[in-house]
């Protein structure tokens, strides 16, 4: 096992491409647990936290670029980001304790590819994309195309996520993320729902995105749930249709955290509640 801490993305990519058993170390909150429990035994660990561009959040014309090694606590401290995308920041800040927040990253949460990842449904709802650097250059993909199944991603050998991009927030937009856990803090989502929506000047919803966590083999975008909101004033009837469309999209497993029936029903309830929060935020923007 070897440890490298390159200072440029191209050096990191070169290292990752050269070794099949290489792993990226960002916050380490998943990787170190997996190493300790013998689920992974990397030949090479590439610590990406020494790459300056990966440590910063940059805002440009209302859009944000979040470096892959930016920790959750830093997202929470970034006022403009919190104001523009409160749902994304809240979802990221739900992950673990303050200790975990000092380290855990959005890119790490995305690439760990847990179907129950908290920040991913919020990112998908926000229309975020991931900048992926690799031996053949860079490509930018929608966040929802990164995770393909539990612990599996569409990243090829030598590739790494360099940044997460959040688009400019249109006027009268709001986002929210809610999850169900049986305790008040620090648990893994039984269901997670991210909602983002935009209103016109008359209060009619013109655009929406709804994404679900922990109810499929990966985080899923649910266009039918968004359709339930678009064209409505997000009234009680639209929220009912949203809940039904959300539940209909669930294909969960039974496990110790919840049954299929429970997850399916709760997803609809949370979608409604998250949409209500997003609506309130959209009206305030």
């Amino acid at each position, binding site marked *: *096992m070897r440890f490298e801490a390159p200072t440029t993305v191209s050096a990191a990519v070169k290292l990752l491409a050269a070794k099949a058993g290489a792993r990226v*170390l960002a916050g380490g909150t998943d990787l170190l647990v997996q190493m300790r429990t013998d689920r992974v035994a990397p030949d090479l*660990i590439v610590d990406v936290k020494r790459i300056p561009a990966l440590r910063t959040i940059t805002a440009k014309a209302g859009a944000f670029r979040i470096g892959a090694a930016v920790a959750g*606590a830093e997202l929470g401290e970034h006022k403009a980001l919190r104001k523009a995308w409160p749902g994304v920041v809240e979802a990221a800040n739900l992950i673990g304790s*303050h*200790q*975990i927040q000092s380290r855990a990253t959005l890119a790490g949460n995305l690439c760990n590819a847990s179907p129950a990842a908290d920040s991913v449904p919020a990112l998908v709802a926000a229309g975020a994309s991931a900048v992926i650097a690799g031996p053949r250059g860079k490509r930018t993909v929608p966040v929802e195309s990164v995770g393909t199944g539990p612990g599996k991603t569409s990243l090829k050998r030598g590739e790494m996520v360099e940044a997460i991009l959040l688009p400019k927030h249109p006027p009268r937009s709001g986002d929210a993320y809610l999850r169900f856990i049986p305790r008040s803090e620090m648990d893994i989502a039984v269901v997670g729902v991210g909602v983002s929506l935009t209103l016109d000047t008359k209060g009619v919803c013109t655009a929406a995105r709804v994404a679900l966590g922990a109810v499929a083999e990966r985080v899923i975008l649910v266009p039918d749930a968004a359709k339930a909101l678009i064209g409505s004033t997000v009234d009680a009837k639209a929220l009912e249709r949203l809940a039904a469309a959300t539940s209909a999209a669930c294909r969960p497993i039974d496990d110790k955290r919840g049954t299929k029936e429970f997850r399916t029903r709760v997803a609809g309830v949370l979608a409604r509640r998250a949409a209500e929060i997003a609506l309130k935020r959209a009206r305030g923007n």
Partner: protein
Amino acid sequence: MSKVQVSTTINGDAVSYLCEVDETLLDVLRDRLGLTGSKEGCGTGDCGACTVTLDGRIVCSCLVLGAEAEGREIRTVEGIANGDKLHPLQEKFLEFAALQCGICTPGFLVSAKALLDHNPNPTESEIRFGLAGNLCRCTGYDKIVRAVQAAAAEMRKG
């Protein structure tokens, strides 16, 4: 496995060590540097007994590689007292009997100090949320919260 040479700062002192690639900062502190104040509870970042600060932020040292500490600034429970003079948090933990078996105490002290450095006058709720990454199976937390409140009051007096 080739070892990694690391130079870092711990409790204000320059420190160098050699460690294995997969060796955690917690193991380095305890087994190589003799700083056994930080404890291993779960080893997976859930319990907070190994809490230290890394560049001013609290982290679970069981989830940090020793190799990552190069050039960073680490503070452990050993650095909280000023020589023989205990920190107000340590005084109040004793006075309020905010510990029983003591395994969680170093982590609580490091987290509580970080909390008070950031917020000198926290509410009870802020203390409970601020210390939510530290588990105690003895005290029921109440005495810990009271000790932190009392230490905060004392520190505000200056």
